[in-house]
Structure formats: structure tokens, C-alpha cells
């Protein structure tokens, strides 16, 4: 009885407040919001998880799996976390993030004994993995080179387009992938570099191009670098797979080192998502090489101004894991071993997949499976063929035909090869 009175009093109060009138006209705020399209990459894993078929295979999103198809937490990471737990100070990092983590990270990209590090010419901040580093750079580019555009390779990680678009930097594309050879379209790439207006901004994948796995050779990189010099272009490197491509971080940084030798003042996004398996921790770094220390200080201060209204300061935990590992020689060696192990397993799976396809008598060439490098194989399959793989064989990948080799195991490579053969043999 009492509660009913209370309820009706409540209603009466609400009506008398004049709000009842307002309710009708308030219904329209979000009803025009369109449902957004699913992210093409992340949507694949969602679909995979929903599938109950026992033979299902996920070669969609690029997260590493061991040979049992299980996600991996590196031993060096477990040990670092054991050391950190109980003593981690959770105070705010500075806006530019953990200085210790950034210093170690720059060594990986620029070289252990880099002159640029010694001369303090690199403006660098901790960023939210590779995405965050690219976004900070895009916003910085918009602010300080407002008339510039960004040249993005075809194809590229789909989120690159979203990042520069949301930063309101106009985009152009440059030729990269050669469909017929499933390799690099070097001639067209060089044409595009030459034809771009002087001083254009280019986004380059430092190694293990995503999604194609096609990287320029060392000589090709030197030619690209030379042409960039002639044209006075700005090179921004997205390096998400250092160590993961060849197994050797120094080797994977070769393109960057070539550009540095040739005198380019580069920008670089680095990520620990894959090579340290820190995906969800969102640890990365954005660096911009400047003419001198004074300029680096100014640029860093401006990068911080962009970070502040976005997230204030970056998360501490992942950065602590990274700096714990990289500043301890034993842990760092363990990490290098584990990264090589992951890269080697992937290289092994490439060999197996190609062997299987050739042994099945596939009429198509599969050399590119072992020529391509890094986590992904650009199979050359059409969206329709991919749909058949998914619908008939419960194999999940992105519709551009990109196979995440990290999801291939000794246990599923045979099944995968058979399915690919079935959907491609008549083409």
C-alpha cells in the first residue's frame, strides 16, 4: 500500500515538473543514428567465436598462436609481471609516458648506439600501441603541416585510413602490391613517389607489410630512400612487427636504418602488441627525428599537448613490463629468443602450407606464401572464394584474402590447404 502511494507520488511529481511534456520531443536525439558497419578485421573473430563447428579455423586477426592454436604469454612477460606485482606504483605517468620505456624503445628502432639518441634529437612519447602512435602523428601533421596530405600504400591495414581521416588529413594512395606476381609493384611505386609533389608525406610499413607480407628488398629500399631525398618527401614508418618478420629485430629495422643513413628526418610508430605479445596493454611509441635537441624538445612538448585532451597520460602497466624486460640483459635475451621462436614457427608454417598446396596439385602458383614475410600471407583469393572458405569450411579470414599465418598450426595446415585448393582449383 505504502509503496504504491510512493510510486504514484513519484509519477505525480515528475508530471508536475513539466517533464512529461518534454519526453515526447526528446525521443529523437539518437534515433537517426545509423548502425555502424562492423570492423572488417575484428568482425571476423566475432563471427569465428559464434561458430560451433569443431573444425573451425581462425586465420583472421593478427594475434599470435602457438602450434596448439593457443594464445601465448611470453615467459619474459610473465617474469616481468611477477616482479612488478606488489610494487607497481600506479601514479600518473608524465604526458609523454615512461621515459625509461621510451629510451629502450628508441634503441630498438634507431640502433643501440644511435648518434641521434646520444644527441637527444628524437622527440618521442609513449603512445597507445601502434594505433595511438599513428593517430598522434596524424594529429601533429594536421596541426603543423595543415596543407599536407598522407600517401598510403594500396593495400594497407584498413585502420590507417580511419586514423588519418579522423585527424582530418587528406589521403592519397600509392601503388604497392602487384596482384599478378603477388609481390611488390616496384615500378609503379617509384612512379608514384616521383610524381607526388615535392615534400609529400608518405606512410611506409617498415617491415612485414600488413596485409600483403610483401616487403621491398634492401636495394629497393635504398632506391626508395634516394628518390625520397630527391623529392624531399617525409617518411613516416609504421613498425608493428619488429622482430616478428625475420626473427631478428636489427634486421627488421633495416629500412629505417637505411633512411637514417641517407639523412632523412623520419617519423616512426612502434608497437609491442605482437613482438612482446602485449596486445591488450596498448604499449607503443611515437618518435620524430629532429634537426637538433631544441627542436626535439619543442616537438615533444607539442605531441604532449595532443595527448593531454585525448587521454591525459598513457597507461603505466604495459610500459613497466617493457622497461623491466628491456633494461635487464637476461630478460632481454629471453625476449629475443622468444621472438625468434614465434617468427620461426610462422616461417615453418609458410613452408608447410605451400608444400601442402603444391602436393595437392594446385594449378596456381604458391611461391608467394614463402616469399612473403611476417604474420600475414596475401593469398590472392577473391572475396567470393573467401566466403566459400567461411561458409563451407568454417575458415575465418578477412575478405581481402589475407591469411594470418600465426593462426596456422601443424594440426590445421592440412585442412586449410585442402580447403584453399578446393575453392581455387577451378580458377
Amino acid at each position, binding site marked *: 500500500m505504502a509503496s504504491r502511494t510512493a510510486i504514484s507520488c513519484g509519477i505525480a511529481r515528475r508530471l508536475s515538473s*513539466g517533464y512529461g511534456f518534454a519526453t515526447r520531443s526528446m525521443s529523437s*536525439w539518437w534515433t537517426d543514428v545509423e548502425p555502424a558497419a562492423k570492423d572488417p578485421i575484428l568482425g571476423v573473430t566475432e563471427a569465428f567465436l559464434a561458430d560451433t563447428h569443431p573444425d573451425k579455423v581462425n586465420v583472421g586477426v593478427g594475434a599470435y598462436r602457438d602450434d596448439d592454436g593457443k594464445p601465448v604469454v611470453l615467459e619474459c612477460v610473465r617474469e616481468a*609481471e611477477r616482479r612488478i606485482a*606488489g610494487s607497481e606504483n600506479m601514479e*600518473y605517468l*608524465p604526458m609523454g609516458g615512461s621515459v625509461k620505456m621510451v629510451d629502450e624503445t628508441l634503441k630498438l628502432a634507431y640502433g643501440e648506439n644511435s648518434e641521434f639518441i646520444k644527441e637527444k634529437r628524437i622527440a618521442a612519447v609513449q603512445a597507445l600501441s601502434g*594505433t595511438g602512435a599513428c593517430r598522434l602523428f596524424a594529429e601533429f601533421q594536421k596541426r603543423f603541416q595543415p596543407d599536407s596530405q598522407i600517401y598510403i600504400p594500396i593495400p594497407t591495414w584498413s585502420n590507417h585510413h580511419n586514423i588519418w581521416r579522423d585527424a582530418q588529413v587528406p589521403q592519397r594512395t600509392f601503388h604497392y602490391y602487384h596482384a599478378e606476381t603477388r609481390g611488390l609493384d616496384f615500378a609503379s611505386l617509384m612512379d608514384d613517389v616521383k610524381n607526388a609533389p615535392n615534400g609529400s608525406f608518405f606512410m611506409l610499413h617498415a617491415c612485414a607489410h600488413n596485409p600483403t607480407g610483401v616487403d621491398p628488398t634492401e636495394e629497393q629500399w635504398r632506391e626508395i630512400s634516394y628518390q625520397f631525398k630527391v623529392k624531399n618527401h617525409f617518411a613516416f614508418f609504421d613498425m608493428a612487427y619488429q622482430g616478428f618478420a625475420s626473427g631478428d629485430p636489427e634486421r627488421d629495422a633495416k629500412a629505417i636504418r637505411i633512411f637514417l643513413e641517407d639523412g632523412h628526418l623520419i617519423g616512426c610508430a612502434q608497437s609491442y602488441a605482437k613482438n612482446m605479445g602485449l596486445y591488450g596493454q596498448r604499449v607503443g611509441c611515437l618518435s620524430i627525428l*629532429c634537426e637538433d635537441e631544441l627542436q626535439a624538445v619543442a616537438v615533444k612538448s607539442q605531441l604532449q599537448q595532443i595527448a593531454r*585532451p585525448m*587521454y591525459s597520460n598513457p597507461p603505466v602497466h604495459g610500459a613497466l613490463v617493457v622497461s623491466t624486460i628491456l633494461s635487464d640483459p637476461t630478460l632481454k635475451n629471453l625476449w629475443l629468443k622468444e621472438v625468434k621462436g614465434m617468427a620461426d614457427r610462422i616461417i615453418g608454417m609458410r613452408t608447410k602450407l605451400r608444400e601442402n598446396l603444391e602436393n595437392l596439385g594446385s594449378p596456381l602458383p604458391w611461391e608467394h606464401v614463402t616469399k612473403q614475410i611476417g604474420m600475414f600471407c596475401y593469398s590472392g583469393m577473391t572475396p567470393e572464394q573467401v566466403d566459400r572458405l567461411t561458409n563451407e569450411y568454417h575458415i575465418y579470414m578477412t575478405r581481402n584474402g589475407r591469411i594470418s599465418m600465426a593462426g596456422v598450426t601443424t594440426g590445421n595446415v592440412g585442412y586449410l590447404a585442402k580447403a584453399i585448393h578446393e575453392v581455387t582449383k577451378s580458377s
Partner: protein
Amino acid sequence: MDIDRTNVIMSPLERRLNTISRHLIQGCFSDSTSIVASPAFYGASVFQNVAQAPEDPILGVTVAFNKDPSPLKLNLGVGAYRTEEGKPLVLNVVRRAEQLLVNDLYRKKEYLPITGLSDFNKLSAKLILGSESPAILENRLATAQCLSGTGSLRVGAEFLTKHYHQRTIYIPVPTWGNHPKIFMMAGLSVKTYRYYDPTTHGLNFKGLLEDLSAAPNGAIVLLHACAHNPTGVDPTQDQWEHIRQLIRSKNLLPFFDSAYQGFASGSLDTDAQSVRMFVADGGDCLVAQSYAKNMGLYGERVGALTIVCKTTDVARKVESQMKLVIRPMYSNPPIHGASIVTTILKDRNMFYEWKLELKAMADRIISMRRQLYDAVSARGTPGTWNHIIKQIGMFTFTGLNSKQVSFMTSEYHIYLTSDGRISMAGLSSDKVPHLADAIHAAVTSIA
């Protein structure tokens, strides 16, 4: 004859030799073994004209404090809690959650979904709205884990810029220094409404109502859910009800910033009353939550943005659009801090323990207010000072002007923001006399 380099056909090897010879010609050997290209070789940086940005006023206070060698120095700048011993505090319950996580061998570190940890989102919504909230029971929320309060505000603002018909947000005067930057960077235009009355050190209620009444219908209004930063001045329950009616009558869209739930009064429910009042009337609103202070998770960057919608269907569409804002910003949020929060909120004992530790922090701050007020009163410092105990939350808006603040810093080594805001959390019993002396000196020697 000038050779146009772009037309010279060279083999890759020739080109490489050419590059090296250019190095040599410009005399760039720093020692006999390595080739180091000189600055002259590079060409100017495209960013050569980038000017140094000014120090962030709030974070800059700690920078200056750290540089000061005086043993008397006191940091009342940034709003991070300190114990009586002046040490940062990691809550016991947080340490326990940490241990549970590190010992869980099956715990993975994969990418979270774009909107973050699902359990975290549900628990956070319950925390701020109350588990009986009609919005929760009717499943018409869109919640995304974001990077603390800042990240939640930014994602919300970007969403509004893309999908809301009004691009103006009204913020109180004064407000947290980062608020206008967040909204402007997101593409909103920022206007203000009167809030603080310096003559009473309290709420300028009349000015607030006038300014919101004059706002165009549909405009967005930023509201501090409790413990207004920097003033510590909150509306009373009755004033909130009045504000709510005005906002709803003009179809203004409330955007709550809840950074101190539990920290202000010591009670999670009390500190959520303003938000719950708005949600109870069935209207739309946005809420940004932060666990930085109330769980001491500052650097882990844990927070949530909740958009309260009219129907489940609309909420689903809204959530899908939130993802499009987040993906090009940082793809998905950091897992560690959210895992700690979820571990605590899920477990009844840990939740209870958290509430006790939270109340202890709030009580210590309330005690500091009392002690400072008593000390200032005892010195007979000119002016009225009861706002020190009337204001609520981490900060006291002393009413000191920037000259007086500079004086306190240079003469007494006391660090605070130039608007006269002191962080009570940075104060301890043994430092109260020193602070009271400084205030007294500042007020009596500088107008």
C-alpha cells in the same frame, strides 16, 4: 651543365656509391670508422617552425615542486591522494586484485574488444547508476571502457560531434583546465555558464539558472557529478532538482563528469545522486566515469563512458558508432586496470573492503579540512574561511589570487595552481601549521 638528378639513370649500386660519395664530399666523417651524416646534409625539418608548447598548468606544478630542494616544500597541486605520511597510496584491495591476476596462469593479454571488457562495463554502469536503475533494467545503455575520465569525455565529445545535432557544450566557470581542450579538440564549440561565486565561495545558483536558460535548446551541458573540480562547491539536492527540471524543459543534453564517486562524501551512492536523478526521469544523458582517484588507479587509465538511450535498439546503434570513434584513436582500451576493477567489483568481500578504504580516504580529507579551518581561524586570518569545510572533495578553492599563490610558492615552498586551488589530499596534519602560516602571510601582505 646541371644534371637533373631525377633523370639520371643509375643502377642501385651506382646510386649507393653516389650517396656515400656525397657523404664524403661534405666531410661528414666524425671519426675514421663511421659515417655520420651532418645536419647540413639533411635539409631543414618540415617541423622546424614548431614552437615549444607551454607547460600544462596543473602538471607543471608538480614539475616545479620536484625541482625545489627545500625540506619545507609541500605539493598541493595535482589531485592525487597522499597518506598522512605524504606517500602515494595503492589500496590493499587493489594489491590483492593484482596478485590474483598475476597468479592466474590462464589469464591472457589479447586485445580487448573495441569497447573494452564487457564485465567491467556492466559493473561500472551499475556502480554509477545503481543496479536498480531503469536504464539498466531496460537494457538501454551503451557503455565503453575508455582511458579514465579524460578518455571517456573525449570519446563522448567525438561521438556528439558526429551524431548530435547541436555542436555547443556549456561548461561551468571555473572547471578542470583540460575540459575546454578536450571538447574543442573533439570539434565542439565551448561556451560557459556561471557557477562559482567568489564573494560567497559558494554556488552562483541564480547565475547558473540564468545562463542555462539562455542556452539554445538542445545544447550540451557539462555537469560535475560531485566534488566540483576545482571549487569543491556542489549544488544541494534541491538545487540539483531545479537544475534537472530546467535542463529537461529546454531539452539540454546533460554530460556528467564523475571523477570522484565515493571520494566526496565517502559514500558511493550519495555521490551518485545527481546522475541517478537525471537517469530516473527517463531522459538521455552521458556519463564519464573515472577510477583514477576512488580506486587509486591513476596511471592505469581506467574509466567508462555510458550513453543512456531511450531504447535497446538505439543503444545498440549508438554503441556501434562509439566503436568507430575509438578504433582510429587507439583501437581498444588497456586491459590491466580494467581487470583490477572488475576483480574488485565482482567479489562481494573485495567490494566491501574497497568501500571501507574509500571511506577512509574521504574521511582523512574531511579531517584535513577541519584542521586547516581551525588553524586559519586560530591565526585570525582576515576574511571568511568556512568554505574550507563547506566545500567537498579533493580540492579547496581558497579564494587566493595568483599573486598570493606566487608568494606562497616563493616564500613558503607551497605548490598549488595559480587559481588558488589546493589539493586537500596532499595535506597532512604535520603540514597544516605551515600551510596556515603561508595563507595568513599571503593574505596579510598581498592584496
